[in-house]
């Protein structure tokens, strides 16, 4: 019985002392791909809807953003936020992606799609800066899949202390 008291004491101590977390998943997952047929570069970003809407609401002082029914103002907010936090440069020039769509693709996941026609100039390298939601969560991690001609790597990870990558491509 005496020993059991140890367990109770440690139980109470741990309960009061530790703010233990289950695994928080703070992540965006995106894909940068090139379609040779249409000569278009497409950027697809999946956000967790609760995290993204809460952050946009806080940043832009807006209430109850519902990605099932986004209006023009909310679309501009999304495009503006992504343009500010995610930069892709080709041959040292920033690529101006155009917003294509915003839609809920599964429960709590909203997908934002951008695209841009690629000019005839050869692209040999891309500089990618991805700081999406780093201003919202310290534990945010951004995964990016690549489907680009000549790329020797097909997945990247961005964390707050390492949010910039340079990759070699050939298209």
């Amino acid at each position, binding site marked *: 019985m005496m*020993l*059991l008291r*140890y*367990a*109770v*004491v*440690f*139980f*109470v*101590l*741990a*309960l*009061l002392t*530790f*703010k*233990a*977390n*289950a*695994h*928080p*998943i703070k*992540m965006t*997952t*995106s*894909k940068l791909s090139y379609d040779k047929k249409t000569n278009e570069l497409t950027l*697809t970003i*999946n956000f*967790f809807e609760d995290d993204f809407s809460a952050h946009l609401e806080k940043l832009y002082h807006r209430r109850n953003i519902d990605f099932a029914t986004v209006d023009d103002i909310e679309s501009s907010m999304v495009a503006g936020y992504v343009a500010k936090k995610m930069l892709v440069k080709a041959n040292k020039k920033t690529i101006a992606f155009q917003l294509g769509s915003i839609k809920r*693709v*599964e429960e709590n*996941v909203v997908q934002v799609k951008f695209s841009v026609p690629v000019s005839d100039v050869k692209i040999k390298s891309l500089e990618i800066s991805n700081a999406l939601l780093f201003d919202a969560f310290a*534990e945010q991690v951004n*995964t990016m*899949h690549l*489907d680009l001609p000549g790329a*020797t*790597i*097909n*997945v990247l*990870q961005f964390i707050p202390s390492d949010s910039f990558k340079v990759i070699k491509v050939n298209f």
Partner: protein
Amino acid sequence: MDEFVFYIKQGINHITDWKGLDHMLFIITLCAVYKLSQWRNILVLITAFTLGHSITLALTSLNVIQVNRRLVETLIPITILLTAMFNVFKPQKSNSLVSLNYLMALSFGLIHGMGFSSFFKSMMMGLSDNIIFPLLAFNIGIEIGQLMIVVVFVLIMALITGFFKVRHREWMLFISGAGAGMAVGMVVKVLAE
């Protein structure tokens, strides 16, 4: 090859992540009842846990089964709490309890596998064409991370019970009591969100 290594690292980082102690805490609590001399039992126990979580990690990631993420997040700390209670309140000497331990590791492993898949699916989110290869690498990473946790835990246990002469039952009660306390904190936090 880079992609394979990337997902192995993700598996290791996920299970050894200090910001999310749930899986680590479960493994530690599960192993707390064994002494260093019982390392074979620990190995079998961990294999049972691996078998359990690999099944549901694969089934959930491949969308064969669908799970409610919030429910899984609640159940994971409950597995820690139950394991800790089992450690503390089980009769001290009974052979049938050894196999009960393995059964518990296997069945609770099924729940943790669903938790692993939440993270894995978040990384993929339908944006990668190939899922089998990353899934295999991610699972290998989890196994490596799991072994790292067990080795470190067993070394600390050996130091405390061998060098500092703390009785093993006291050590087990310390780990189980603290594990249960942290698990209750996690359940409360998940339910409050």
